[in-house]
């Protein structure tokens, strides 16, 4: 279980903003929070492992209308750390 949260900063373009928020809300593993300001969206991402978490970070960053994505919080539990370590081992070994 990986739970992280981002602050997604949006452009000033209203149409783009609405499209981004709609796209974020369409992803089941995302929870989009209330918008305290029109240009910044808090998002919680809940996924099974760290790789998925990073995938979604990249996905959000690529959305038209997104200026930047800042990381606010990251948490993982014990099982995920094991997974990370195994994946790490496989990658490092294949690379060396």
């Amino acid at each position, binding site marked *: *279980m990986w*739970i*992280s*949260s*981002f*602050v997604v*900063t949006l452009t*000033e373009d209203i149409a783009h903003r609405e499209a981004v928020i709609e796209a974020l809300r369409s992803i089941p593993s995302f*929870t989009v*929070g*209330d*918008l*305290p*300001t029109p*240009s*910044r*969206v*808090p*998002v*919680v991402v*809940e996924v099974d492992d*760290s*790789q998925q*978490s*990073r995938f979604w*970070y*990249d996905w959000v960053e690529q959305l038209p209308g997104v*200026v*930047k*994505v*800042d*990381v*606010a*919080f*990251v*948490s*993982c*539990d*014990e099982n995920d*750390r094991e997974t*990370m*370590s195994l*994946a*790490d*081992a496989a*990658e*490092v070994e294949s*690379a*060396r």
Partner: protein
Amino acid sequence: MNDNSLTNQQTDRRGFLRATAMAVATSLAANGFAEEKTPTSSTPPGGFDLPVIPDVTWDKAPCRFCGTGCHVMVGVKDGRIVAVTGDRQAEVNKGLLCVKGYHTGLILYGNDRLKTPLLRKNGKLEPVSWDEAINVIAKRIHGAPERFAIYGSGQWTIPEGYAANKFIKGGLSNNHIDPNARLCMASAVTGYISTYGVDEPYNCYDDLDHCDVLILWGNNFAEMHPVLFSRVVDRRLRGEKVVLVDLTTRRTRTSQQADHVMIMQPQSDMAIANGIARELLVRDAWSKDFVNKHCNFRGPGQPATLMGEAISFEQYRAELDEYTPEMVSKLSGLSLKQLGVLFDLFANPKLKITSLWCMGMNQHTQGTAINNLVHGVHLLSGHWGKKGDGPQSLTGQPSACGTVREVGTLAHALPGDLRVDDARHREIAEKLWHVPAGRINPKPGYHTVLMWEKFCTSSTEPGGIDTIWVQVTNPGQSLPNTHKLFDAKAQHPEKFLIVSDVYPTATTELADLVLPSAMWVEKNGVYGNSERRTQQWNRMVDPPGEARDDAWQTIAVAHRLMELGHPGMNDGEGRFLFHQADASGSELPIWDWATYRTTNMDERLYEEYRPFTAFKHKQVAPYQELVKAHGLRWPVVQSADGTWKETRYRFIEGEDSFVEPRKGFQFYHSVTKDDKALIWFRPYVAPPEMPDAEYPYWLDTGRVLEHWHTGTMTMRVPQLRRAMPGAYVEISREDAVRLDVKTGDNVKLATRRGELVITAWVDGRASCSPGHLFVPFFDERKLINRLTLDAHCPFSKEPDYKKCAARLTKVT
């Protein structure tokens, strides 16, 4: 506990973490970087808004990556890092982290961490005890102390660098110590010293919150210092006008946000700066009042030297005369219109202009000169000394300022900006170190390029280096021209390379002895960031296996040398050089690992170092003040009420306690001893190697967002590795068509120093101009520095990684 209760507990925990994550993000989204929400340095760490998660304890630490100095809060459970969040009380990042900070907790857990000392026997690295490893090093040094060198790092903590510096300069009477920061910011050091007589920026990141114009001189700010870039982006989103000028040799993510993208020819920054200065004079738009009160003029002299010679204003004007807009346009490739934008900005006294730079100006064979020139256009135009109005260098490593520039781990330096070639400075250091007069060698040691040249040539040469101890860096990948400066070691079996590190690297491949080190929150630490901010953290988790602190390694070797009879390992009173006593006055055996671990040696070493910082008015805060704060910017001075006050801006009355009353503005370490800074003329000088018929491309190297320098840590984080799995050569679409190269094709990249087969990326993440190539240096399987040039600035000795001539052919 039955299955149902376990499931319920997990669900509860998940819901709790979800709510926590949302609360943190919502709060940050509401505040952003808005100044009115800014906490202060005196806000106690962890005092509010810290996530409360069962069984998780939190503590503060600066991020391990880059020189920005963001603070993170690290959550630990059962001896492991389980959560990371931005530190909302930290002024630098105000709770936000970039993607590297996101993964900062994972860098400890690569499966191939070095966990035991390894000694090369019959060509193979084999495990040995710490005792044997320490013996091997001590005997090696004892045999020829003058042929020993330490190669350190801007990732050393302040106490680590201080211990190494004292060991070699105060113990071995040998100044052959230099850090990898020589390769990234030495030109900024010489630039500051030759402009206002003392190193490091007078200003701070607050400028980003106040400037009207931000000029990036060869600096991919968005990717290299993303959190600082966020401060500017946030201001623009709040409706504030900040004009962003990207003066660059290739389009990057920074360019996407820029109002003016100015693609210049490599090295032409010098001509552009001289052109701006000339135009200020032609328009009579220079700040006569500021210049007359606070500046002198200076030229390089014949031959050119670091401190040059005084020139008159008329001479200065005459030297600039040839830098007409037309001449500058021809050299730089910028249009007259683009140059006009720069001229107009600097000529407008109502604007507040911040200039930023990093490797683009520092890794430059005229690095000192271009630093001088950018300071000069700000001084001449009067864009200096107000919030948001001044030039500021950035660093790439977390303690390049703290450990290298302040602790003086450069070959010519002593702590506190003192110098080994100054008798008075040596006397100060010898007294503070309690070593006999004359212990410190007056001759500067070898700078990085020379040190490795001496190591990679035969031992029969006089002045050679036979043994190098590398700590916290990876020169096998990061030195320029590595065939010459590193790989050649393999041809000299009499040479001995010791490497203290956390993972196997290109450097450990050739090492004779590898020592496993503790990293980041596995030890106590103190860093100093780009804006003079000193930051402290506590050990939070144990290092793996037998990994141990670098400072302990240095002290243990020093003690073994003392046992072997090296006289330099005793102080003037016959005690151990690193003597420490307990409360009763009895000697603490800190060379013993168990004692070291139970003693806060960081605090002791730091407090021993702290008096040095008074001599150039760089007073760092007491250790216990740092414990309470989120970093404090020096000089930190004690107020009448006993509180400690940091300094945001130096040399300005009301901000800097050392400015004399009614002076208003005072460069009190002035080169000319008259409280004035120097406006330099430095002529444009062509690069030492330029494209020609045989090697027709410019080759530029650098970093990418996902990876920290040589990738030793970040390439072991699967997410980062997946996001940026390997190095590539960025090539323009025009060149790709001409060479019939597509993205993913293998191409052979060659320079006069070597060649490399590498994957092409047409247009890449950024976008090169035709005739230009870019390769990142993070990938140890694609050692691009075998191709780069070791030519360096004559004063800073910093090599130029940003421009050399290359050839590209398609591999069929």
